[in-house]
Every structure is written in C-alpha cells, then in structure tokens.
C-alpha cells in the first residue's frame, strides 16, 4: 500500500510537470492554431540558460534569467517566423516549428557535449518523511509550483482582458478583429507564456531523482504532447487532466516494472494511453464539440 501511495504521489508530481508543458502546447495552439513542436527544445534551452546563469548567481535569479531567455526566444519565433507567415497554412507552420526544434536542439547538443548538467535547484536530494513514506522534496515542490502556476494561469484566462481576447480570438478570429482586438498581442503573449511554462517545467523534470539535464529532456518533454492531445488540443483544462493521466500511467508502469513490450513500457505508455483515448473520443477528452442549441 505504501508503495502504491508512493507511486501515486510520484505520478501526480510528474503529471503536474507534464501539465505545465502540455498547457504550453495548448495555449499556442489556441492562439495561433499551430502545434509548436519546438516546445521540447525550448524547454532544454530554458534549463541550459538557468544552469549557466546559476554559475554566477543564486538559483532563483538564475531561474528568472532562464525563464526570460526562453520567453524571449518564443517571442522571437512568433514575431519573426509565425507572424510573418500569416496566411500560410497552419500545417506548414507546424512543420516550420519542427525545423526550429531541430536547429535549437542541434546547437544545444553541441554546447552540452556529453555533459549532464545539474540545474542547481535548492531541493537537491533532500527527502520529506511522511509516516512510512519518504519523498524527494523536489517532487512536492513540483506539485506546489504547478498548482500555483496553473491557478494563476486559469484565473488570468478566465478573468483578464488577455484571457477574454484569447478565447474570443480562438473562437472567431475575424469577429474578434472587428471588435478591435489585436491578435498579434494575444499570440505574442501566448508564446511567451508557453516559454515560461517550459522553463519552469525543466527544473522539475531534471531535479532529483532524475540524473540531471541533458538533451534527452526534450524527449521526456515531448511526452506532454500526448497529454495535450488526449485532453483535447484546444482545451486548457484538458491539458491538466491529460498531464496527470500520463504522469500517473508512467509512474505506475515504471513502478510495477511491467514487462509487456520489453520492459520499457513506461516510455511508451503516454502514447498508448493517447491512442486508446483517441479511439474512444477522437477530439480528446475535452476537445471542442459543437455546442448547439437544442
């Protein structure tokens, strides 16, 4: 039983990190209808900048530098590539982000070499003891930070002018333009928020008990993609549910060492879960279904 609770907490912790990354996919998709495949390497970039900045300053300012660098990179991608290609097919733009992903990760791989960097988070390998359970502090921190960030995001999405403009534009771009809503600002903010979320997520993705940061974090981050898809790519709430579902599934299969499909089922399970859910609900759990008057 202790083991089970341990795995559930692990799963929730991992899942909340996936939720942050998945939310990045979702808001960029909502704002621009583009699937941003560069999210994974943006995340590695955030981790890299934070680590390098940490050589010169304490962790929190270093993380802020990492967040700023990632958000600005996202903004540049949006302004220079996505915005100038306005009118281009969204599928073409999605492929464009694959190109950006390859460029970014190639450069980062060159810089990393064979190093595994430690991001220098303050929790280190400390444990929290709760009765029989002992949990890495970083895992609990991940849950706390994710809850705070997600709450903040959902409040902004529901109540702020940015949120209203974003939802209006996602639903009917032309009508939103006729209301004088400037789509450019909405999309720029969406990309920057996605960058911010990635830069925070990388801290917890690479914190103890993970070995540290290398470019492999990109593949792990991309497991948030099935999370976003199964929640419904245009649903912010779906991103959170999807993230938690994937996190729990992964923690369980890894924890109980399921040997189906050759022992590393945990790496595959996000995609399996996604496939099963899409078979039942093709637009994801919370994906848009036409809301109509009966």
């Amino acid at each position, binding site marked *: 039983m202790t083991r089970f609770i341990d795995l559930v907490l692990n799963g929730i912790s991992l899942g909340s990190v996936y939720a942050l990354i998945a939310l990045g996919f979702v808001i960029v998709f909502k704002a621009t209808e583009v699937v941003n495949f560069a999210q994974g390497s943006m995340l590695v970039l955030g981790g890299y900048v934070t680590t390098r900045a940490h050589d010169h300053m304490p962790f929190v300012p270093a993380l802020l530098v990492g967040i700023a660098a990632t958000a600005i990179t996202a903004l540049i991608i949006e302004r220079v590539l996505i915005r100038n290609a306005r009118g281009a097919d969204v599928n073409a733009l999605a492929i464009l982000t694959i190109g950006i992903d390859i460029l970014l990760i190639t450069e980062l791989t060159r810089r990393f070499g064979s190093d595994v960097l430690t991001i220098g988070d303050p929790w280190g390998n400390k444990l929290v003891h709760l009765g029989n359970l002992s949990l890495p502090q970083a895992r609990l921190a991940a849950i706390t930070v994710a809850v705070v960030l997600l709450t903040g995001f959902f409040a902004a999405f529901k109540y702020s002018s940015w949120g*209203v403009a974003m939802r*209006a534009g996602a*639903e009917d771009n*032309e009508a939103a333009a*006729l209301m*004088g*809503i400037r789509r450019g600002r909405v999309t720029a903010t969406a990309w920057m928020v996605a960058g911010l979320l990635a830069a925070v997520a990388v801290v917890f993705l690479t914190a103890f008990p993970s070995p540290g940061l290398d470019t492999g974090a990109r593949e792990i981050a991309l497991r948030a993609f099935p999370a976003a898809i199964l929640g419904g790519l245009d649903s912010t709430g779906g991103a959170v549910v999807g993230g938690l579902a994937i996190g729990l599934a992964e923690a369980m299969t890894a924890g109980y060492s399921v040997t189906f499909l050759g022992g590393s089922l945990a790496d595959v399970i996000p995609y399996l879960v996604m496939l099963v859910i899409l078979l039942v609900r093709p637009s994801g759990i919370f994906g848009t279904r036409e*809301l*109509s008057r009966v």
Partner: protein
Amino acid sequence: MLEVSELHVSYGGTVRALQGISLDVPDRKVVAVLGSNGAGKSTLLRTVSATLRLHRGAVVSGTITYDGKSLAGLDAARTVRLGIVQVPEGRRIFGRLTVEENLRAGGLGAADKRSRSGSKDRVFDLFPILAERRKQRAALLSGGEQQMLAIGRALMASPKLIILDEPSLGLAPKIVGQIGRILQTINADGTSVLLVEQNAVMALGIADTAYVLDVGRVSLSGSAQELAASDDVKHLYLGHAATTSTGARTDVARDESLRPKATLSRWQG
C-alpha cells in the same frame, strides 16, 4: 462623416467585387445599402472595417475617408478606435463565451477604456434580456437574442458609426421590427448607422438615404422615401405580388412603432 469614393476592390487580383462605388454616410444619419447576394455589400463593409486582407482582397483604387481622414492602411483595431464598429453578418457572437464575456470582448477595442461600465449599463438598458442571461453561454441564446448580443457587443466600443451587415438575416418578422426600432434608438442617441440589408422594407423604414448595389456598382441612390417609391426597388425588393412571405414583410413596414417616435421612453437621459 464616412465618404467612400470611386472604390474598386478585387479578390486575389482577379475577381472584381466592387467597380467604382461612391457613397456617403452623413453625421447622425441612417444609411441603407440594398443589394442581392454577390452585389458587393459585404466587400464594401470589409473594406471599411479593414478585414479585407483576411479574405485576400485588396483595394485597387478609390478612397474611404472618415471625418476627412483616409482609412487606407489602417488595421481593423485602429478603425475600431476611430469609432467605426461593425456587427458582422451572421452575428458571429462568441458562442463559448458567456453573454457578459462577449460584451467584455466588445469593449476591448474601445478607444476610451473608462467608458466601458457605462456602455455596459447602456447595453443592458437597451436589451434587458441580455442582463437576464448575462451568465449564460452565448451559443444558448435564440437567434434574435444573439443578434441583440452582436449589436450590444459592438456598442461596447462606443461607436460613432455602427455598421450592420444583414442584421435581419434568419430572424422572425417580429424580431426584425424590434431590431429596427433598436437601431432607431441607437441612432437617436447620436450614432450614425450604416445598414446593409436584403430586407428592404425594414431598411427603408428606418433609413434617411439609401443605395442599391448591383454587381459591384451603385445602380440607384436617393432618399429612402424616393427609393421605396421607385418602381425598380418595388419590383426587386418589396415585391408587388402579395405572396405569403412578402406579405409578412409588408406587415412589418406598416407597423406603427417602426416609424420614428417623438419620445423614446427608455432612452431619456
């Protein structure tokens, strides 16, 4: 206040949608533009509201000025800030947003952010049903209520000129009459109205002047009374044979309340 002169617009460089249109919306007046499908009505409005680019259209020649300033090169958001706000064809409300959020979205482009709460009170005054349903998702409103929401949403930006693209489309005659009266109220409060319609009875019933578009050109123009009396308009839009559908429309025209009233009880001060 709005002057369109010799406007030529084409889509994709080939399809000529407008071929030399000139029209004039004087301050505090209601101007109707009539025309059948494909006459260029929507293109004209897209050009004024600067959403032509979203449809891959471009102005070939001609000018649009507003209070003497050219609107060329402005984007949609800046046009709204100047006080020109459009209620799009088919209402285009944000169905997944609540009524109140729709109104809020309408106020996002307002030039004067402080006037928003006043605008909202005014909209709820004009459309009490929207106040009742403020927390509902807009998609669940009836067609007439959605049209009211679309108009209310546009009013949130405190327009000096409100443009409506076929507000009567798909609505019951009774609701059409109601929309017509509301437009008169809005106009009486000092907002100019540019009304594009296929429902000539309602449009000519409230307009001061009117234009008839035909395949990208102005084929007729004059005061609303003149046009309503002209044989061409009677023949094309009002229908002289008393079929059921046109009969229903004529009822709306005869509706006493559609004519301007001396006092507007809901709208004093």
